[in-house]
């Protein structure tokens, strides 16, 4: 577990360093994710080390956004004034993104192949 945590934190640290040095607008942990994926593909040992601990963290992913979510108490007034705009933006963008994403997947899979669904 310590090995896995060290690897994950080291990837995050490397990601932060690259993000700062390059000035890319990408959060460091996202670059860390790309780095870890590359390492897992290249070295099967990395995958075996990281998997149990990483899956443990991901199983309770929702817990991790509770502290940030509680911060909404400081934003209640802004949610009140901008509520209708935000609500409309959330609902329409999510519905359209779902429809467009699924339709494009089906159309491209039909045009280019890409295997069949199990179902």
């Amino acid at each position, binding site marked *: 577990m310590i090995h896995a945590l060290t690897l994950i934190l080291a990837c995050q640290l490397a990601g932060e360093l690259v993000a700062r040095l390059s000035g890319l607008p990408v959060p460091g942990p996202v670059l860390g*994710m790309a780095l870890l994926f590359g390492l897992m593909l290249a070295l099967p040992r990395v995958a075996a080390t990281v998997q149990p601990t990483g899956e443990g963290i991901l199983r309770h992913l929702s817990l991790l956004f509770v*502290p940030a979510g509680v911060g909404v108490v400081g934003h209640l007034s802004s949610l009140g004034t901008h509520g209708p705009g*935000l609500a409309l933006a959330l609902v329409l963008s999510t519905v359209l993104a779902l429809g467009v*994403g699924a339709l494009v997947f089906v159309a491209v899979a039909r045009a280019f192949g890409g295997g069949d669904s199990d179902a």
Partner: protein
Amino acid sequence: MRDFADIWSYLAQSPLIWLTATLVAYLIGDAIATRAGRAPLANPVLIAVILLAALLWLSDTSYTQYFEGAQFVHFLLGPATVALAIPLWTQRAALRRALVPILAALLAGSLTAVIVALAIGHAMGLEAGLLATLAPKSTTAPVALGISQSLGGSPTLTAVLVILTGIIGAIVVTPLMNALRIRDWRARGFAVGVAAHGIGTARAFQVNPQAGAFAGIGMALNALLTAFLAPWALGLFQ
């Protein structure tokens, strides 16, 4: 015995009490969600946030004071983002087999989510800071918070918008896909992973295992893509 007020003022200074409260609130939320058969509206995060907000208000505790304890949980967002590489790696065979439809649907779904949200927000007169807060809402929370922060938005408000987006996606996905007559479980799952991250992915796993696996791929890939798309898309509306 010491006065309760003394003990309280001692405990209120230490991170222990709010760290414990965060975990307890989440466990309560999770227990309620399980009771409710994992109905999308009974979201454990939403329940935990409401409980904690009420507790802070009742005990007259500031968010800064609360965060002294909660920061230990909050810190794990970074490592969790890095760990998203794991579902991607586990699904690498499926990823390779359907690479072209996956990339096309990723680009289409992610662009639609960001651009439509910003266009409506802009039309409804939201200010620049709020648009930056809104832009990353379809991606998974740890990544969304990072993007929001780097764009000058409000990460705490983004966290709430991310949760709401997940709940909307989880509620809408099954009736919408049925109405569109999409029967490919890969397409249904992938789209909900891109548009509604972890909450949508959890919903997809309830409906069909293949849909769940593809939702996981969609969530991880969109975390990467949104990091590049959101700053660019935001530029279009400023």
